[in-house]
């Protein structure tokens, strides 16, 4: 017989370490239904029964103020796990207990894993585990998950709790005080008339949540026809309570809950005062890291180092992978040729399948390395400091301080940076960052810029390239502003972020995290990229017998059809349209396409390009290349991160439109000014 156990806890409490220690490698990563918040499940076994452990998002409360909290609250209510393990930070017990108490109120049987006992001891904090357990009425198990201490005890406790009858719901009732209690009792009586209001939720808790203004309960009460009655009770009795307290009911309820938590903490925790006055190491680091003079320069240095190192270590690995794929493709084609396979099949395997798979795996090194750094920064506690010092600047654009890292990474490659937006918790911040990231000019666009600028702008080639980077940033900033005040209007961005104490990250966690992300990309985005590459191959190869990507191929014909559209932008010839089409495959391919189409390969381009472009139309073409639809891998990663085809189509349409308009404005504007 299988049990389901939920794992909950605040961020930075070592919840992931507990999860890993309990389940080992027996894990499965997916998404919560309908949303792109990661859902991890694992299994462990002891005493002959299987336990499915569901890792809830790290939250501070169940108040449904964020998507993560909503998911956690919803899971406890709807899926009704047999038990929940709450990971509490022993060195910061009070805050951890708030979540535990909220969970107790939902009636879920709990076991508290009192983690980071070592950090607590260092701070001079002693916790009376038995007293804590008695005060809350739940088992408490001390652990140090990073050293796997207490994990066996935790497992045994979970099993004995499960064994004592999984139907046993907690009957915990938080004392809300003499002022609030009469009001809550009246609401409870009202709710008891319609017990189906929220199945599984104790009446008392439903009453509390109603007073707190929980939208879910309010909607349920509406549906059950109780809302008016309850509103009247709140308006009548509640108003008097508010008056006597001096603040509103929502505040009153949350204040009482914290009051209870503080009381429990005061009784169970004792501090060694001799250690209390000493300035902690974290504090001393923060004096430097967040200081007025050094805070920002240090952050830029760290961000720059992450950027440089990711590509410095990743690029050679990518090159190795690329040549391996090429060799593999040639071998396969050779073998198939020798075996008498038709040309079309050989080409399909070499250019379509192996080439397509190759264009997926080449992203792995950068994603792996970037996520190793992100895990390092998050785990050490520095990421929060970076967001703290950068938030003012990023907020000018309507973004979050943490948006800076993915945006910077975008200059290397948009794919890992799209995945890097996971560090943002709010959907609004994440969506806006995702939508503007493709305007960060990635390194694949550089060869196109360099080629054209070298041919057309001579001495000023460097300035031309630089101006394109700046243009990308400007378009990103303007877009962020537009999205913030239109699509995401009213959804304010919030900071309210903990600055956790610094701690030394564990190498195992960092590598595991990096591997998970890289693997996820291969698995989830890979299929999409592979299919798109095969599609491009087919368009360039058919009707069979024409030269690959030539004027007579499908893509050439499409290019001819589209060419008139580009007349206002100054490049209304089919070669440009075909090059842009192949650019969707990977932007640097624009160069190779021109090389093939104009003959003479890439070396002959310098002579051939001026036959098609003027300097003005060349610049317009570069603006298009910079801004129009990002490559297929970015689109695939975007689709994977948003989980929405609608948003993916929006991204494709928006960027292409912006690119086209940019090119037209440059060309027409330039002509008006008499350039070109």
């Amino acid at each position: 017989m299988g049990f389901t156990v939920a794992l909950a806890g605040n961020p930075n409490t070592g919840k992931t370490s507990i999860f890993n220690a309990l389940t080992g490698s027996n894990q499965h990563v997916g998404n919560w239904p309908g949303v792109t918040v990661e859902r991890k499940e694992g299994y462990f076994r002891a005493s002959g029964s299987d336990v499915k452990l569901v890792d809830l998002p790290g939250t501070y409360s169940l108040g449904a103020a964020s998507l993560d909290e909503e998911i956690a609250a919803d899971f406890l209510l709807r899926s009704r796990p047999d038990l929940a393990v709450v990971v509490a930070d022993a060195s910061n017990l009070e805050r951890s207990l708030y979540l535990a108490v909220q969970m107790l109120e939902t009636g879920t049987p709990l076991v508290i894993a009192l983690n980071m006992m070592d950090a607590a001891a260092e701070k001079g904090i002693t916790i009376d585990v038995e007293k804590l357990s008695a005060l809350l009425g739940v088992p408490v198990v001390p652990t140090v998950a990073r050293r796997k201490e207490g994990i066996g005890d935790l497992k045994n406790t979970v099993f004995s709790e499960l064994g004592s009858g999984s139907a046993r719901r907690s009957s915990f009732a938080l004392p809300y005080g003499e002022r609030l209690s009469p009001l809550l009792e009246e609401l409870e009586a009202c709710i008891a008339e319609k017990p189906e209001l929220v199945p599984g939720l104790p009446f008392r808790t439903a009453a509390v949540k109603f007073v707190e203004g929980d939208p879910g309960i309010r909607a349920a009460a509406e549906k059950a026809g109780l809302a008016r009655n309850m509103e009247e009770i709140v308006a009548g009795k509640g108003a008097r309570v508010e008056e006597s307290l001096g603040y509103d009911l929502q505040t009153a309820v949350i204040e009482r809950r914290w009051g209870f938590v503080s009381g429990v903490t005061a009784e169970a925790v004792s501090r060694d005062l001799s250690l209390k006055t000493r300035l902690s190491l974290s504090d001393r680091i923060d004096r430097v890291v967040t200081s007025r003079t050094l805070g920002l320069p240090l952050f830029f240095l760290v961000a720059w180092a992450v950027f440089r190192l990711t590509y410095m270590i990743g690029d050679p690995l990518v090159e190795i992978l690329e040549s391996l794929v090429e060799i593999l493709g040639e071998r396969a084609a050779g073998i198939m040729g020798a075996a008498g396979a038709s040309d079309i099949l050989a080409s399909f395997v070499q250019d379509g399948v192996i080439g397509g798979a190759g264009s997926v795996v080449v992203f792995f090194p950068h994603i792996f390395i970037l996520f190793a750094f992100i895990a390092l920064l998050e785990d050490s506690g520095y990421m929060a400091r970076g967001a703290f010092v950068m938030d003012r600047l990023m907020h000018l654009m309507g973004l979050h301080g943490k948006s800076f890292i993915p945006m910077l990474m975008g200059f290397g490659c948009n794919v890992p940076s799209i995945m890097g937006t996971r560090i943002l918790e709010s959907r609004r911040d994440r969506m806006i960052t995702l939508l503007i990231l493709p305007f960060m000019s990635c390194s694949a666009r550089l060869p196109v810029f360099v080629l054209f600028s070298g041919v057309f702008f001579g001495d000023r080639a460097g300035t031309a390239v630089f101006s394109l980077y700046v243009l990308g940033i400007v378009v990103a900033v303007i877009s962020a502003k537009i999205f913030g005040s239109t699509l995401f209007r009213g959804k304010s961005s919030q900071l309210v972020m903990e600055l956790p104490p610094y701690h030394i990250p564990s190498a195992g966690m960092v590598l595991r995290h990096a591997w998970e992300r890289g693997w996820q990309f291969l698995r989830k985005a890979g299929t999409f990229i592979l299919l798109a590459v095969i599609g491009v191959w087919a368009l360039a190869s058919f009707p069979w017998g024409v030269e690959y990507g030539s004027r007579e191929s499908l893509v050439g014909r499409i290019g001819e059809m589209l060419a008139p559209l580009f007349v206002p932008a100054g490049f209304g010839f089919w070669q440009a349209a075909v090059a842009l089409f192949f650019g969707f495959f990977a932007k640097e391919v624009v160069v190779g396409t021109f090389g093939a189409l104009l003959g003479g390969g890439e070396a002959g381009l310098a002579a051939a390009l001026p036959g098609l472009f003027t300097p003005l139309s060349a610049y317009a073409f570069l603006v298009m290349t910079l801004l129009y639809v990002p490559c297929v891998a970015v689109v695939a990663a975007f689709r994977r991160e948003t989980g929405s085809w609608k948003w993916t189509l929006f991204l494709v349409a928006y960027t292409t439109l912006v690119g086209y308009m940019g090119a037209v404005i440059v060309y027409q504007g330039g002509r008006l000014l008499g350039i070109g």
Partner: protein
Amino acid sequence: MGVLSGCCESGKEKALSALSVGEGGVVARIEGDGSLKRRILEMGLVPGTQLRVERKAPLNDPVSVWFRGYELSLRVDEADAVIIRPAGCAGCPGGCR
């Protein structure tokens, strides 16, 4: 209560955002409504909570506040919603009005 309300009248409430680094205070109430207010409350900034402004970011925004044994950063416009009792009024029921 007379003495306490007297002390309340002597000082003035101010927003958390108006405190300088190192200055402490006690939360009187959280203004506004919606998810920001709820989040601030659930992070533990409820009436009666003692806090201290720990540091400010290089551009003076956000601010970082120490309370209940941990450090929380808030943007200045978020800290505007946190109303602090004047010093010496920790015992006023319902804060100062």
